[in-house]
């Protein structure tokens, strides 16, 4: 039988050889050394096994329900705005009189004011009168 110094306790500890088994069973010195080796392994292994994985981007937090609803409403609003043409303002009829001549013009929204400005530029403000004739 080999003595303590000839035996490789690492092989026995790691289960690679059973050669030292008989000796260890009867040798308190080797039993103590084996125990120290186990403690050393535990110390090197550390508190836990390496369970790290490849770093991945942190998962995004789930979108809250109210935020989803708001997003849906926003999308619907945008779609509606894009697909449905805006309602045109009702036309206004104006009677424009200049001298002996009288014209009826039909304008919508802001264009009425712009048209008046154009007419005044052409004919002169003093001579032009406007009269709203009602709406359609």
């Amino acid at each position, binding site marked *: 039988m080999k003595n303590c110094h000839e035996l490789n*306790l690492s092989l026995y500890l790691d289960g690679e050889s059973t050669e030292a088994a008989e000796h260890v069973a009867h040798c308190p010195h080797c039993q103590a050394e084996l125990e120290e080796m186990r403690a050393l392994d535990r*110390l*090197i292994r*550390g508190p836990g096994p390496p369970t*790290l994985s490849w770093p991945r981007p942190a998962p995004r937090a789930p979108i809250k329900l109210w935020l989803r609803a708001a997003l849906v409403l926003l999308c619907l609003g945008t779609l509606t705005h894009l697909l449905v043409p805006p309602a045109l303002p009702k036309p206004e009829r104006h009677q424009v009189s200049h001298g002996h001549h009288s014209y009826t013009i039909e304008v919508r929204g802001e264009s009425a004011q712009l048209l008046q400005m154009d007419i005044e530029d052409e004919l002169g403000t003093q001579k032009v009168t406007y009269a709203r004739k009602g709406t359609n």
Partner: protein
Amino acid sequence: MVAQSDFERACLPCYGRVLHLCQRMLGSRALAEELAQDTYLKAFEKRASFRGESSVATWVLSIAHRLCLDQIRKPTRELLVQEPRENPVACPEPARLESQELLNRLSPRSRSLLILRAGLELSYAEIGRILEMPVNQVGVYLQRARKEALEIARAEKML
């Protein structure tokens, strides 16, 4: 040539072990992360040379180990200085600090052997492939490494 997706599928699961090996070999989390990335870059570049004689994990770990040894051989000694605790996740526990202190005092060969066997629980055959030594020598050197570590641990009352 191994496709990139196949390579990722095979290599990425062992990233934790690669990082663990680098961190324990160098004693620095920041340096270990850098080296782990270098390991994967190198593994990707050399993926055509992988012959399947060992597992992918063993092959990647051997690349990481070689890079660690290159790093240790560099003249700078800053790698053995503990990094500042700026990141609470990377902050090592007292037991890990103690074991790192012990590992830092071992020779690179003993350190490698103990990390691969006790830390990563690899078989002698896998350790042999990584350290490029016959399996029977792994047992011999591991015995020496444990004796060397035990002497330090006893002297420092770590056990």
